[in-house]
């Protein structure tokens, strides 16, 4: 008797999942780095290749690591806000210039403004792979102890900053504004 109800039951369950699925994003790859130590790296600086910049530069601070490139259209769209954020955000932004052309990158920063405390040049993409980067722009929030607190994919906007980054920064700095100079 009950076996005649089996098909409709299975069907309802599947349709339920489909309905839920309409509001999910199947192509979004969540980062397994959340809550784990951020990758360490040491790469040539964009503006002065004889110097290096890396994770050691923001060790002990709360910082943003922003993956960008001149060939990335969304990076171009988020750039003005990043420039603003560099002034008002209260924490430093370190750039990771991903598989880019150095001359174009420099020109880009010259004309559009440079929000970065420093930009590291990842010519081979090895460091980006360590960070699990797959779609520029990506912005990581790194805590004082080097843990990845949050990752945002696609352009940074004021809404994203307020909704996702600020609460986590506030929690990290104990309710006080994090300044670039604050040490544990």
């Amino acid at each position: 008797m009950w076996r005649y109800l089996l098909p409709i039951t299975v069907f309802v369950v599947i349709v339920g999942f489909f309905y839920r699925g309409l509001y999910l994003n199947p192509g979004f790859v969540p980062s397994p780095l959340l809550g784990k130590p951020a990758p360490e790296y040491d790469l040539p600086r964009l503006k002065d290749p004889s110097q290096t910049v890396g994770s050691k530069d923001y060790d002990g601070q709360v910082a943003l690591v922003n993956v960008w490139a001149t060939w990335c259209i969304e990076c171009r769209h988020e750039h003005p806000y990043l420039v603003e954020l560099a002034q008002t955000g209260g924490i430093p932004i370190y750039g990771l210039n991903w598989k880019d052309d150095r001359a174009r990158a420099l020109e880009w920063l010259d004309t559009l403004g440079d929000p970065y405390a420093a930009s590291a040049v990842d010519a081979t993409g090895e460091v980006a792979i360590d960070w699990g980067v797959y779609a520029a722009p990506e912005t990581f929030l790194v805590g004082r102890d080097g843990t990845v607190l949050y990752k945002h994919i696609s352009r940074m906007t004021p809404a994203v900053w307020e909704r996702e980054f600020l609460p986590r920064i506030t929690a990290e700095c104990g309710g006080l504004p994090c300044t670039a100079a604050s040490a544990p």
Partner: protein
Amino acid sequence: MIPELGQFALVLALCLALVQATLPIAGAATGRHDWMALARPAAVGQFVFVVLAFVVLANAFLSDDFSVLYVAYNSNSNLPAFYKFAAVWGGHEGSLLLWVTILATWTMIVTVGSRSLPEKFSARVLGVLGIVSFSLLLFTLLTSNPFDRLLTPIVDGNDLNPLLQDPAMVIHPPILYTGYVGLSVPFAFAVAALLSGQLSQDWARWTRPWTVSAWMFLTVGIALGSWWAYYELGWGGWWFWDPVENASFMPWLASTALIHSLAVTERRGLFKSWTILLAIIAFSLSLLGTFLVRSGVMISVHSFASDPARGVFILMILALVSGGAFTLYAVRAKHMVAEGGFKLVSRESFLLLNNMLLVVALVVVLYGTLSPLFIDALGLGKISVGPPYFNSMFVVPMLPLVLLMGAGMHATWVGMKGETLARKLAIPAVGAVVLGVLLPWVIFGSAGVLTVVGIVAGLWVIAASLFDPVRRMIRRDGARTLTRAQWGMTLAHVGIGMFVLGVTVSTSYNIETDRAAVPGDRWELAGYEIVFRGLRDVQGVNYAAVEGEFELRRDGTLVTVLTPQNRVYRVQSSPMTEAGIDARWYRDIFIALGQPLGDGVWSLRVQFKPLIRFIWFGALVMAFGGLLAASDPRYRSTRAESRVSSAAAVSVETS
């Protein structure tokens, strides 16, 4: 023609579909002949207007009417006329119109072909088809209107996706849809049976040719898609277990099971409720596929631009049509149990096993396809399920099925002695094992266990299928020759054997290398010599290309010259690769250009693929077998016969 005419035609079709969907079924329930009689004219009228809408859209493409948004997105004035016509189904809205047109065509054919069926039954069948038509026409008009205008004028269109500018790609959707959508007919027959509360062996006999016909188109459609992917996408693969590929394969598995289940119902009157359930499942899987492609729920290379609003609408259609059918099944099916026995070794047993294994395969594919969604929705993370899973797990039910197939064909109805069957099969079995073990060693020099198993299985099915026909022809039994349906069955199974051989051999002995080469280089591949002659620029109608010239030689003599190209289609600046393939029935040689690496060096992919054509030849043979089976004269009842059977049916029907 003005596009608005097309839209108006769709609205008229919608109204007629509404009539077709409601009154005939109500008439069958209440016994009103005038309402039941509306079914046929409504269906015919719907067909006329839907076809008119399709013609209007086709004309908009062929006359470069870029004021229609859909045409602007999918066409270009430089597109060859053939592709302009195909561009009608190049995007979501147009392909939906194709879906609806094909449904209307099937409905039309059912209208004509069901004239000899009992009045109430055909009213219900057409009514159900009307419900499906109505839902899809409403969906088209409300969310996916192909006749929307582009208000700002443009100079020229966006061009058809270059991936679709290919002959195989052009015929693949219509043929696939014909199969896919055609499963609505057995579905309608099943729901009509549930509505009437009756299921006779006649019903099975009526339903079977429709099912086999739809199955046939589905087989060819899937094979075309696979073949196209192989030669066009150029990585030498022919099946990726992409969600939408699976979405077309699952109805195929279900309808294959249905054909076999119908055989039992027709012959012995058994498995009635199961057959009905399969018919409902098969078409529900078609609708599910339609949902998956257009909702954005799964990532797929086939996805049209997705929109949750459209997804919700299709889900509602699915809920109405399939959910309604499954509910009706839950209520009515228990009254359709039949009495009848059969022994352990009997055709019924084998067909039961066939169905079980096909359903297991179906569920494996379904579960594998939907698992990423299930796991994501439950918040358990994100996984991918791809070829490594499907290739290994699909074999689990399939291998037993292929092995049992050979035996099942020879089992007699009701029951037989196991020894009799074993004796019958001894020769083909031994032959298959001996050849299957020897041949790979002789031809290729090595063979793994799985390879041997696959080759034995393929040879076994072919041998077992041909054993009886060949034996009869040799003996010249005279009186008892095979019917068309029996030849159909024979060929269909031979086709499967060929397919299994093609898959096994091409997978096991395939050679694929990537290399960097300059003109003048020569190298050896599987006993052939390949010489890279050079490169030149070529201009096509709507593309510019770099073409490589390669000589294929064997023992010094020239076999052929292959000319793979790297194209850039001008309008979208999109690159496309055309592989150079030398195709023989026993092997393909396949060369594809990669990229220039500087200093005249190019990367290339070169492949040797033995017996790969058997994959698609096998499918064609299968489909041809289906054609023979469906056209067997026993399915065409004469007027006299049908009057008798419909009178009998009327006296039996109670609701």
